[in-house]
């Protein structure tokens, strides 16, 4: 593991304030989810998961068809679809658009896809003003941090942290009450909304049969960002398409519940094209940017295609004992938690963050709560195997591979296995394991844990004695 991550993990583990903030926030989200998916409240929860998975599978197996249908519907609604290979394509399109329209000011509602391509920084370098309007995202923009969590970006910060930040960056009085902090942000952001030329949103779902972009939000900023500015640009990954509007309830019932324990998010907005005649509000121009950025590479891999089923609810993060310990900023990319560990190596290259799929106890808590039933442990195991294989192809035989080869041979030779076991037991003896052996894996174990007393006889030896008596 690269030293930078080892340090980040070490720092997170020893930061008691952070540990308690992350632990209590995720615990609250877990408990709320549990209440609203309980059999008495949502009896068809398991069927909904099956259904959601089946819809995702069908759509991704026929993705070309549904994407083209979506484009045709958007065009018919008076909007335009932009196909973006990567972040560069998105930036080129947006800067071109801003130049053409003489726009400079951009407001954004929360979008992980734009975080993925580091859109804010890149637009700022092109001299555009970009303002995040989701409260958590706004806080992070002021703090120059990336999201800590897919759904709750500022989950690691306490209201006292936010009080300091607002006082420092906005020059306001230090205010620790959350309601009052919200009012401060609201005052600043309202001006930004009114002045903005372009509103950028993400897209939770792209509905192919109606050409609608559906966004699920809680703060109302999404509605302002997509209706006040003259231009609305929705940016979403190509995997976000679903076939029909009638497939939506399945996902809407699962998304809010899995994410925050809400039966529905406060706002569910259907954005299908620019303002029509006789409509009171809405943008004059509507663009849907469909981003690949490596998704077609995942799509081509049938064994791991289900990685694309993710609806970004963040539930796997909340339930992951590893995420809850190391936190979102210990992960190499914007996507953290189990889904981050699964998709990061697939997007960024297998050996780029090769340690990541191994940083899991494979407890399976993630798969148990995933609303689209992604088999995350299975994907982690598949990635581990691929990483080991591609390492062998690159650097030849590693020490670890040699060790496992030897181990495998021993395990097929019970006589040798027993002899080695007896030898180890003799070495450990009464005085415990001698110092020269307290290195490597054993040393790692002993760093924070004791070892059991090594028995003098193995089971098989006890069994023989028992039979003989």
């Amino acid at each position, binding site marked *: 593991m690269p030293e930078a991550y080892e340090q980040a993990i070490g720092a997170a583990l020893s930061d008691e304030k952070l540990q308690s903030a992350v632990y209590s926030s995720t615990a609250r989200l877990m408990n709320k989810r549990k209440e609203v998916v309980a059999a008495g409240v949502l009896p068809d929860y398991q069927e909904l998961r099956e259904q959601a998975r089946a819809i995702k599978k069908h759509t991704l197996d026929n993705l070309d068809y549904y994407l083209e249908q979506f484009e045709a519907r958007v065009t018919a609604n008076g909007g335009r679809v932009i196909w973006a290979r990567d972040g560069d394509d998105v930036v080129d399109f947006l800067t071109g658009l801003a130049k053409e329209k003489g726009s400079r000011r951009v407001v954004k509602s929360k979008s992980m896809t734009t975080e993925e391509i580091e859109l804010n920084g890149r637009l700022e370098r092109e001299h555009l003003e970009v303002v995040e309007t989701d409260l958590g995202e706004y806080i992070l923009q002021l703090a120059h941090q990336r999201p800590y969590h897919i759904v709750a970006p500022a989950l690691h910060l306490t209201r006292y942290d936010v009080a300091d930040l607002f006082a420092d960056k906005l020059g306001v009085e230090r205010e620790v009450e959350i309601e009052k902090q919200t009012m401060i942000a609201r005052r600043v952001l309202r001006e930004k909304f009114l002045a903005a030329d372009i509103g950028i949103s993400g897209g939770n779902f792209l509905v192919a049969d109606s050409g609608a972009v559906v966004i699920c939000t809680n703060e109302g900023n999404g509605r302002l960002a997509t209706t006040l500015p003259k231009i609305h640009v929705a940016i979403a990954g190509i995997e976000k398409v679903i076939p029909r509007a009638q497939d939506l309830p399945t996902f809407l019932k699962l998304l809010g519940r899995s994410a925050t324990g809400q039966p529905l998010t406060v706002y569910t907005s259907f954005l299908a094209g620019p303002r029509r005649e006789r409509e009171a509000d809405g943008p004059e121009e509507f663009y849907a940017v469909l981003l690949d950025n490596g998704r077609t590479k995942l799509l081509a891999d049938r064994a791991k295609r289900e990685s694309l089923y993710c609806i970004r609810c963040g539930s796997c993060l909340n339930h992951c004992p590893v995420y809850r310990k190391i936190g979102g900023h210990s992960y190499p990319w914007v996507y953290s938690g189990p889904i981050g560990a699964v998709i990061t190596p697939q997007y960024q290259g297998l050996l780029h963050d090769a340690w990541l799929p191994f940083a899991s106890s494979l407890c399976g808590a993630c798969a148990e709560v995933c609303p689209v039933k992604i088999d995350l442990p299975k994907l982690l195991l598949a990635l581990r195997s691929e990483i080991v294989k591609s390492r062998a192809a690159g650097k030849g035989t590693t020490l670890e591979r040699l060790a496992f080869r030897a181990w495998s041979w021993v*395990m097929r030779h019970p006589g040798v296995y027993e002899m080695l076991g007896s030898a180890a037991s003799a070495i450990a003896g009464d005085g415990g394991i001698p110092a020269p052996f307290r290195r490597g894996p054993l040393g790692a*174990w002993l760093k924070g*844990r004791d070892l059991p007393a090594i028995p003098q006889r193995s089971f098989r030896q006890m069994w023989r004695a028992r039979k003989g008596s």
Partner: protein
Amino acid sequence: MSRVSLFVTCIVDQLFPKVGIAMAEVLERAGFEVDFPEEQTCCGQPAFNTGYRAETRDVARHFLRVFRDAEYIVIPSGSCTGMIEQHYPELFKKDPVWLEQVNRIRPRIWEFTKFLTEVAGVEDVGARFERVVTFHDSCHALRQLGIKDGPRRLLANVRGLTLREMTPAEECCGFGGTFAVKFPDLSTAMAKAKVDAIAATGAEYVVGVDASCLMQIQGALSRARLPIRTIHIAEVLAQR
């Protein structure tokens, strides 16, 4: 009388032999003829979880040969049972000959408590253990095999035993095989969270169905100098 073949797992064989003996005693008292195929070693999980599938397959074939003719294979571990039941098919998906072996053996593989409650139909093994205990749900037993109520029903019938549930009982102890030594600080931090939950119950013993999780928990308990002990459920059920 049905014959039961023990697969005691490498960790019980080498580090916790008394768990295997206890399991044999409980099964014999329940009326089974118990044997121990001596050629057995490991299910292959350490290599599988670390990404070494070719090496795992060699060990898995050895397992399949050793237990080919067993009537029931009973295992004191949810994790090793899950390995065979759920991951062997994946390992041999491109090898129809061995896949058939896997599919023949899968219905005969049983985790120990699941075998007692579902095959033997026993919930009261006549045990006595006058202690306050808490129960740790091992992840693979719980999530791969659906083992949740069975061990608790068995414990409920142990004379003198008081079960005090910890919150959360279902959170991982942080063992995870080679994860425990590849990420020692993280693994230990997870164990500490578990230890806190255990200590809060006031229990004298932590009972579990997997020796590996118990080794992790015991390692953290004794490093924290807490007097609480771990004990495998087979050892509890063998107490009279």
